[in-house]
């Protein structure tokens, strides 16, 4: 899709509404080609996306991808270093507390009404659980007192867009394939039969919950609120996992998706926390890795796009245009091919084949070989996405990635766990 097509399909409305809202800067922006600085992670800061957005919007975009913590530190201490920040909901509290981001005006989001209820009210279907921890809807709206909350207002702290559910991956050449939502369990991570062959993602706001879900599934611990553990609960949880680590139960932790792939491909690990692209890559290498659908539910995550406190004038207009572009269809279809969902999927459907939509969103068997974002075939005919459809997966959310109140304390315990 080129810029002309983009403007025809969605920008007409956008430009008309922008003009009516008295935003002449966007018109100027198209002529002067302003540059926006976007910082975030490799998950969304991909070169294909940048080039497509530049073509469609006629602006310059500089992507600076990096590690989660590195980017969060940069954004929270230097709002001048970025115009848009792309990461996860677990960074929102930090950014908001640091006054590093400004509220986003809903009236300027072209596709706001199309965004589904997952972010707006917390669930896609009435029977879906809200999930523990920082569910995105709890942090979405800017309240009159400046705090973040779930009561609807005309300003939001982030643009809802990419999201997914995560769990653990296991090698079915070693571990017999389980039944999704029935026999597959987080408890497997702590089972004695996998001694020495287990790895965890090296991120306390993520890996900690994988361990907590595993320990609870094994009946080793109970939490008052797993999404915001007390110090005593944190101590008890780490007591369990540190004892196991000392016995050599864990191979270690992984720090990047390629590292997770390497660990399972080498055979050092047969079961570990995983992200969707890692599972796809292993399958592409012929390693039968299954992304489990644990009976206890998934650990979900939600991407956020935030506007820097320092982003003003022309850059702000371009930043809003970029945010609207993300929900205009093509980007949602692009990231669907790596297993991620978009907050207004129906608009992306037009950019996907029926087979792609059926496989990625409906949980149906692939009617034809499907290609990933790299153009290589990542799904064979007849394959079914583990966990089923989009609705089914988000009906099984146990917890959201969260920065808990005792975040700093969990860091010291994490250190103890790593070096045990």
């Amino acid at each position, binding site marked *: 899709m080129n810029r002309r097509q983009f403007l025809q399909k969605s920008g007409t409305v956008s430009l008309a509404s922008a003009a009516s809202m008295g935003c002449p800067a966007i018109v100027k922006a198209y002529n002067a080609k302003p540059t926006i600085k976007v910082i975030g992670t490799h998950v969304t800061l991909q070169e294909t996306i940048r080039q497509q957005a530049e073509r469609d919007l006629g602006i310059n975009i500089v992507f600076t991808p990096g590690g989660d*913590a590195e980017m969060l*530190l940069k954004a*929270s*201490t230097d709002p001048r270093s970025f115009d848009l920040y792309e990461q996860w909901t677990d960074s929102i509290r*930090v950014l908001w*507390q*640091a*006054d590093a981001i400004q509220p986003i005006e809903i009236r300027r989001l072209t596709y706001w009404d199309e965004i589904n209820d997952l972010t707006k009210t917390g669930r896609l279907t009435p029977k879906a659980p809200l999930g523990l921890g920082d569910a995105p809807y709890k942090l979405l709206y800017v309240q009159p007192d400046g705090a973040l909350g779930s009561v609807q207002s005309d300003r939001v702290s982030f643009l809802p867009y990419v999201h997914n559910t995560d769990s653990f991956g296991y090698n079915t050449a070693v571990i017999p394939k389980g039944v999704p939502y029935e026999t597959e369990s987080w408890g497997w991570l702590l089972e004695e039969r996998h001694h020495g062959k287990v790895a965890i993602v*090296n*991120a*306390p706001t993520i890996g900690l919950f994988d361990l907590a879900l595993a320990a609870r599934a094994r009946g080793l611990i109970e939490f008052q609120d797993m999404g915001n553990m007390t110090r005593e609960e944190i101590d008890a949880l780490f007591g369990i996992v540190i004892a196991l680590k000392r016995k050599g139960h864990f*191979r*270690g*932790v992984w*720090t990047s998706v390629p590292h997770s792939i390497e660990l399972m491909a080498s055979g050092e690990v047969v079961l570990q926390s995983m992200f969707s692209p890692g599972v796809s890559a292993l399958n592409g290498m012929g390693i039968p890795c299954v992304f489990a659908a644990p009976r206890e539910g998934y650990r979900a995550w939600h991407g956020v796009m935030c506007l820097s406190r320092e982003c003003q004038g022309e850059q702000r207009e371009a930043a809003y245009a970029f945010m609207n572009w993300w929900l205009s269809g093509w980007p949602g279809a692009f990231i669907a091919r790596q297993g991620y969902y978009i907050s207004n999927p129906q608009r992306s459907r037009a950019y996907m084949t029926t087979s792609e939509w059926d496989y990625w969103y409906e949980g149906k068997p692939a009617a034809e070989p499907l290609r990933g974002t790299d153009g290589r075939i990542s799904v064979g005919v007849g394959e079914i996405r583990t966990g089923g459809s989009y609705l089914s997966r988000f009906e099984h959310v146990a917890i959201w990635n969260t920065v808990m*109140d*005792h*975040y*700093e*304390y969990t*860091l*010291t315990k*994490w*250190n103890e766990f*790593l*070096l045990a």
Partner: protein
Amino acid sequence: MIGFLNRHISLKHRIHAGYLLAAVVTLALIGLASLAFRGTVDDFNRFASFGQQSRRNLLVASSLSEIQRQALIYTYVGHPSAAAEVGEIRLQLAAEIDRILRQEQPEIRSIAEIMRYRLQNYHDAFLLVRDLRERQRKLINADFRNLATEAEQSIKDLIRLSAHNPRQQLESQEILTAMLLVEKHAFRYFDTLDATHVAKSKQALARSLSGLERMKNSASPSERALIAMAMDKLDLYQKTVIEAVQRTRGYLYLVNVVMAAEASEMRYQAKKLSALVASQMSAAEQSILSSIEDAGSLLLIAGIGLLALLITVSFIIGQSITRPIILLAKTFEKLSHGDSISRIPDYRLPDEIGQLSRAAEAFLSRSKPGN
């Protein structure tokens, strides 16, 4: 064989051949022993090299624990000596890893490569920790205190200026108290790392700002200027607190998550290396035992064989010497008893026994009747 020797090899040559054979057998035994133990010596050298490797691995493992301990001391206590110690240990570790990298075995080299890469990551993260820690220290010890003092001074000036207005004075006192709470909670956060103090500090700051905002409406122009100055200072103060908090979180994450993971991975690789060296040591030990057994067997068999050969040849040579002498002696014995002897036993070689035989032949000829 004996007849052959007596017919073709002189006495002297036979005796020399005996000695020569003994020397050859001795040399052969020495050579065999040397060959048999050459492999064992190589194995011993490898074994000694594995021992050194094990010592290096132990050193690496203990250094890894120590480097992270020093990094934590620097992070939580701020001792510059601990930061310097991290640098020292890192250099020692790098040198040890480089020594391991000089090993020829690809398996060991690949593990050492991983360790070198991890150590570099660890050090890069530590440099960031040091920057963040130093910046945080400056923020807390200088910027933070200066801004707090300046903001407090503005409020105190306001209190002095509003001496005529007890209500405004009271409000200013409340703002001052709220500002002290900002400082108290901020320092409590840095002491305890309990994030609830950050929220409390922010709340107190918001109270100070809203109090100043309220006062602005009823203030005189000179008071307004002071209020505006105080608000500017408070805004900067707030930014400084937030930056210090974020930098604290940043270096805590780096040391507890990033560096700890790198140290953990290096320790895993060091253990893997130790296990590999231990298995190779065990294989070398087996090889040495097996070599010694093989060498012993070879020496025993070869020794028995060579000794048998030496005994046989010595017997033959001995017989070849003694047999003609015994025959001559028997002949002379018969002569001494007056028995008639037709001829002296045949011995044709021109050696000492031949000379004796020929002399006996001459003696016999002269002693025959008719001569």
